[in-house]
């Protein structure tokens, strides 16, 4: 405990806080610019971290991660182009809110949800890192497979209007994820001879293409309408539209709590990534809502659900890193390098050998949450001015940043081609009302599901009866079955109750 005091002293005494602030600001700005994102910020900051003191360097990197998770909501809300794929659900309700003149309200809720999710998840990290990580080891491939099957159940709630099209999109997502070298047999799949495809299609250029570039093309096709709408709407004169009302806080509080919990839980599972957390939170909030059909038209709960989960994933994805030294995400892998560079060996020994440094790290992470709130509030006034800029000036800028962001992924123009290819696919899919949410979920979960299934086959020695030795897996499979039956029943009753409206299949 005395280390905590020392840690506070360290952080506030030196320049650490400055570097944390730099990280949060940089992350926020990079997240807010569509096309650029935290992976870029973290990767290019590595050289910088060589020269800094340990806690400052780590604070910088973690600050970038936190900042970008919150900043990505800005472009999602204002331009309908999420800064990161994980903020895609934020755009569903955030953008309609912005078009109704309530941009500031949406931005504020996004920020508050982000900060709360981030702060609470950091506390969870601090308190529970060690014991939780030991449990995380119990989640082997068999359990992971069952958990993924369970999470697929929620796809139904995310398909938009048409379950059929949503499932088609999910199948495509899984299909595109198989491109590359297959993990067990090392057989190249669908690479068409391109060496660059052997590692698969990168998520970032693909998401940038489908979400940002496609959106820009659609907006380019509607310049007149959109510009006219923008000219007509000022930020509504009702001051309540510029902030979050108490009534909305009341409605969103449980949503944020749920989102934080979901985000923190998903973050601990190695490899699932932030994308999945925010989608599942949005889907779940919509599922339990009394008015699910209103989601997508400007329900502020949607923004709260997506952003709280999105930010909660960041600290909890560091739990396997801190407690076991195992990276659960790309950011964590880069952080490991930074840790080692500065003499911290992540893992259980870290708490015993370097308690003071760890305490300093914890304190700086908590400070990062507070700094995030300040930066976010300051930035919003600035960023929300972008709605008043004519679209034809904004679009080329966004396209340029998208190219840079994609290029950075592999350092070659091949990624830009991927981005363009998926921009076309995204454009067509959007117009034909195929949900890219389920596509992204299929893309992210699909390969993990396949891999853990293959691993399970080997671990269970091709004998299903060995499943009995994995009680956790059985629990999740059972729960998945229960959910499917329940949703099937409730959707049937809903269809019976609601008058037959447009029943698109």
């Amino acid at each position, binding site marked *: 405990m005395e280390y905590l005091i020392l840690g506070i002293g360290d952080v506030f005494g030196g320049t650490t806080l400055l570097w944390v602030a730099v990280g949060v600001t940089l992350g926020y700005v990079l997240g807010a610019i569509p096309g650029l994102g935290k992976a870029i910020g*973290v*990767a290019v900051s*590595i*050289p910088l971290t*060589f*020269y800094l003191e340990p806690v400052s360097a780590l604070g910088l990197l973690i600050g970038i991660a936190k900042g970008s998770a919150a900043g990505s909501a800005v472009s999602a809300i204002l331009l309908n182009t999420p800064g990161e794929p994980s903020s895609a659900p934020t755009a569903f309700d955030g953008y309609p809110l912005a078009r109704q003149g309530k941009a500031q309200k949406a931005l504020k809720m996004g920020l508050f949800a982000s900060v709360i999710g981030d702060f609470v998840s950091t506390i969870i990290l601090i308190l529970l890192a060690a014991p939780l990580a030991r449990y995380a*080891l*119990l*989640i*082997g*491939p068999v359990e992971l497979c069952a958990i993924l099957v369970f999470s697929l159940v929620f796809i139904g709630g995310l398909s938009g209007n048409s379950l059929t099209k949503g499932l088609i999109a999910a199948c495509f997502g899984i299909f595109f994820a198989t491109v590359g070298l297959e*993990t*067990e047999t*090392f057989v*190249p799949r669908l690479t068409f*001879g391109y*060496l*660059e495809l*052997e*590692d698969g299609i990168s998520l970032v250029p693909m998401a940038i293409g489908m979400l940002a570039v496609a959106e820009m093309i659609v907006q380019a096709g509607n310049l007149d309408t959109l510009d006219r709408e923008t000219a007509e709407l000022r930020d509504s004169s009702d001051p309540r539209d510029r902030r979050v009302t108490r009534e909305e806080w009341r409605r969103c509080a449980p949503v944020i709590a749920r989102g934080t919990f979901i985000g923190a839980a998903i973050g601990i599972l*190695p*490899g699932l990534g932030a994308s999945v957390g925010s989608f599942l939170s949005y889907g779940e909030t919509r599922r339990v809502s009394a008015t699910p059909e209103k989601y997508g038209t400007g329900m502020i709960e949607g923004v709260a659900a997506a952003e709280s989960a999105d930010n909660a994933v960041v600290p909890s994805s560091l739990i*396997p890193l801190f407690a*076991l*030294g*195992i*990276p*659960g995400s*790309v950011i964590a*892998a*880069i*952080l*490991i*390098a930074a840790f*080692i*560079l500065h*003499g911290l*060996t992540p*893992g259980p*020994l870290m708490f015993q050998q370097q308690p003071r440094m760890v305490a300093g790290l914890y304190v700086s992470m908590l400070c990062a949450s507070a700094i995030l709130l300040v930066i976010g509030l300051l930035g919003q006034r600035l960023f929300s001015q972008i709605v008043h800029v004519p679209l034809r000036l904004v679009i080329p800028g966004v396209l340029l940043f998208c190219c840079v962001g994609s290029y950075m992924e*592999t*350092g*070659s123009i091949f990624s830009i081609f991927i981005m363009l290819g998926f921009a076309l696919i995204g454009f067509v899919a959007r117009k034909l009302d195929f949900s890219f949410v389920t596509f992204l979920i299929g893309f992210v979960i699909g390969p993990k599901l396949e*891999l853990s299934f*293959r*691993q399970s086959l*080997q*671990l269970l*020695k091709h004998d299903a009866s060995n499943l009995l030795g994995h009680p956790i897996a059985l629990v999740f499979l059972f729960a998945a079955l229960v959910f499917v039956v329940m949703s099937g029943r409730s959707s049937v009753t809903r269809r019976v109750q609601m008058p037959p409206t447009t029943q698109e299949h």
Partner: protein
Amino acid sequence: MKCFERRAILGLAASLAIASAGLLPDLAAAQDYPTKPVTMLVGYGAGGQTDLVARGAARVLAEQLGQPVNVVNKPGAGGAVAARELTQAAPDGYTILFHSNSVVNSAPFIMDQVNFTPDDFEYAGMITAYQTGLVAHVDAPFDDLKGFIAWARENPHFAYAALSPEARMYMDTLAEANGLEPNAVPVQSGGEMITALLGKQVIAAFSGGIHYRYPDELKTISATTTFRHPSAPDVASIEEDGYPIGMDTRTTLFLPKGTPRDVLERISDALSAAADDADFKKVTDGANIPIMYMNLDEARAEIESTYAKHKGILTDGS
């Protein structure tokens, strides 16, 4: 750092201008090398073992050569994408690749699309080695290779984690020679492999060296290199145990074919400073990576001999 940055910007702006204008021949004589910043490609993404060592080496080289060395990550196909890009670069010493030599002496025998030979590149030295080995949890009921094989005979269909085709090759060789029946559990990354080991999901795995970060939980059963690991000097190498399939992987500086010899020598000498550099040692010690410097000629000899040896192992074995 400031003056490096300014030089970096000026240098890169200058090179961009020259490249855009259409590549005037580089008239600078090799003795003046280097007169502008050097680009170091790394074939893996940022943050991994190799990237860490590469950045440390880049710093040392920059100090020794007097010009900034900019690390650019070009991940893909285990380094083959970066290597291919190197073959298209100008052989003037301003583009180098820092990567494991497996891209030349193993990958061509495993991956269809890759067919490099040692003659496709020049070499300016090797600096560190990967401590690859067969690894198990400390609680495992065996301590060395013989013990493992005996245990495996009693427990067929045991599960081990396989990260790469080389890992499967090792296990298959052991299995064939001793009548074992292993079940290979595929894993996609070092982190996954470690998780599987720590969680006792698998009984053993082939690691690229990162298992030394967990000395209290994991032990090395056999070193799959031709030398004993500096981090585990009591563990016999797989060659000592009678299987001539040890494959050494070392980080190497590659240059495009045709680079003049004095440029190579200059870089090789600069690299040798890393072996004594305190900061570089801090990086490698922290990651349990042994420094084993080889100069340009030793590096070439090493690549050529291991190419021949690995060809025998990897094309006959599987």
